[in-house]
């Protein structure tokens, strides 16, 4: 990158390090930190949406829907989340390809599962064989986002369901006494009030979500774990301009620090947010603030 980095074998000490840390591959490593943050930013709204739908479904008065909502939110209790990640990535991919296969190639005679292979017609492949590299990467990322949203949506559903039940029932009764319909009471009374009850749980989930991002590696994305393994491994002078020993320990140490600072900052922000939202609320935290105030 710098002018002086033309011949790394002549460099030493700090100059060598600064050249080493600005190679093209390292830029890929730094970009992957952005990928993690992007994933967090994209997953959160989707997980909230899935969770909200799940929680609302659990409250439904029509029992098949409520069973469906409860089953969705409780399925993650007994089974490790990693199993879901490994499962959904293949299952979703096959589901999409199969659907496209049925639509695009209606006169395909052979079965889709042949022994140990999953075969769909060329037009139904996702992404298409001819697509450029970035389409493949984006599709992989899209699958990862969907998987995260489904799994963490189930957790969110549980938190939101609890929050909806925590809103004093008298509020709903009052709304209905004023002549609001069930739907109106839900949207105008229940939903605006539930967030303060949901926030501790959602904050907890946010922390969990941060700590789940390295699992991207298992989904085949070139994320920070991938790069740390790649860059940290022993490099001999034959293949690299910057030979070094096994530095994976230091790379993962750096990742550890990255995550620790991310959770530390989140904790501070969530604390402040909770204080802000508790102000004037009829909860213990709100009461405590009233007492402290002169």
């Amino acid at each position, binding site marked *: 990158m710098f002018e002086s980095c033309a011949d790394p074998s002549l460099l030493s000490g700090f100059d060598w390090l600064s050249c080493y840390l600005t190679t093209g591959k390292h830029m890929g490593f730094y970009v992957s930190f952005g990928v993690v943050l992007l994933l967090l930013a994209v997953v959160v709204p989707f997980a909230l949406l899935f969770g909200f739908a799940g929680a609302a479904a659990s409250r439904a008065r029509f029992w098949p829907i409520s069973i469906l909502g409860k089953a969705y939110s409780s399925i993650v209790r007994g*089974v490790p*989340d*990693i199993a879901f990640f490994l499962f959904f990535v293949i299952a979703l991919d096959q589901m999409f390809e199969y659907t496209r296969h049925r639509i695009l190639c209606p006169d395909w005679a052979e079965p889709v599962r042949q022994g140990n292979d999953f075969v769909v017609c060329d037009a139904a492949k996702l992404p298409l064989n001819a697509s450029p590299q970035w389409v493949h990467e984006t599709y992989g990322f899209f699958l990862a986002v969907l998987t995260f949203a489904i799994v963490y949506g189930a957790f969110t559903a549980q938190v939101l369901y609890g929050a909806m039940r925590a809103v004093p029932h008298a509020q709903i009764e009052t709304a209905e006494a004023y002549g609001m319909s069930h739907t109106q009471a839900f949207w105008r009374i229940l939903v605006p009030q539930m967030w303060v009850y949901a926030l501790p749980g959602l904050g907890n989930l946010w922390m969990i979500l941060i700590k*789940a991002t390295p699992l991207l590696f298992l989904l085949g994305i070139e994320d920070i774990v991938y790069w740390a393994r790649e860059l*940290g491994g022993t490099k001999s002078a034959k293949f690299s301009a910057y030979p070094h020993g096994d530095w994976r320990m230091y790379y993962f140490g750096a990742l550890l620090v990255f995550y*620790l600072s991310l959770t*530390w900052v989140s904790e501070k922000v969530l604390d402040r947010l909770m204080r802000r939202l508790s102000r004037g609320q009829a909860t213990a935290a709100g009461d405590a603030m009233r007492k402290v105030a002169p």
Partner: protein
Amino acid sequence: MSCIQTIADYGLRSIGIGERLLPRADFTLCQQFTLIGSGMIWNIYFGLLALVFGFFLATAVALGKGSRHWLIRKPSEWFIFLFRGSPLFIQFFFAYFSFLSLKSVHPLFDPLSAAWLGALIVLFLNTSAYSAEIFFGALKSIPRGDLEAADAYGFTGWHRFRKITWPTMLRLAWPAYTNEAIFLFHATTLVFFSGFPAWQQRGDALYYASYFADKTFNPFIPYPILAFFFILLTLTVIGIYGQVNKRLNRHLPEARRRRLKIRPNLIR
């Protein structure tokens, strides 16, 4: 090949007893069931030992965090923050590569880079930190009256801790500690995906499940089998912890007992 034969061949495959080669083609349902079940031995091994050892360290760290002396309090706080603030997945990687570099220092450190010891140490420290936070929370919410009564009866030092503080702390922490145990068992599935090699393909349940999913390209059979085993394990944990909970609360009137509430709020 009958199913009994398969169980005899692969039932203990994950600890190196029985058939050496894994099946390569024409997987039967029985093979998948047996091998994934065999892998559960590792999940139970990691979970159980980490919990048992972690319990003691967690108690010590919780007391440390509650200590008035900063020289004891600060290290405990940092320990908890370090392990609760970072992903277990990264901890595994970091530990594995650190153990690898220790290995080149002295052959004494050799077993550390094997999963049975290295991963166990990481899980042990991790669960200690999570449990310590739970215990610390319980320690803070011990009713003041209980401690005042202990003082009034002349309880001091170790005696007071053993008879009053500790049982009450456990009683208050138990529902949350049950969740911690469940999610620790779930976390054990990460071991063989995070650097630690599965020597001679002796892996845990998820290792075999993903082996089958990779070979058959059909996730709809191995993962539900894995789910079945884990739900069974979760129910067992809830059953055992429920018994302990009953014993811890046996002196209380029925209405004041804390019921176990299983909440999925802890993944690392």
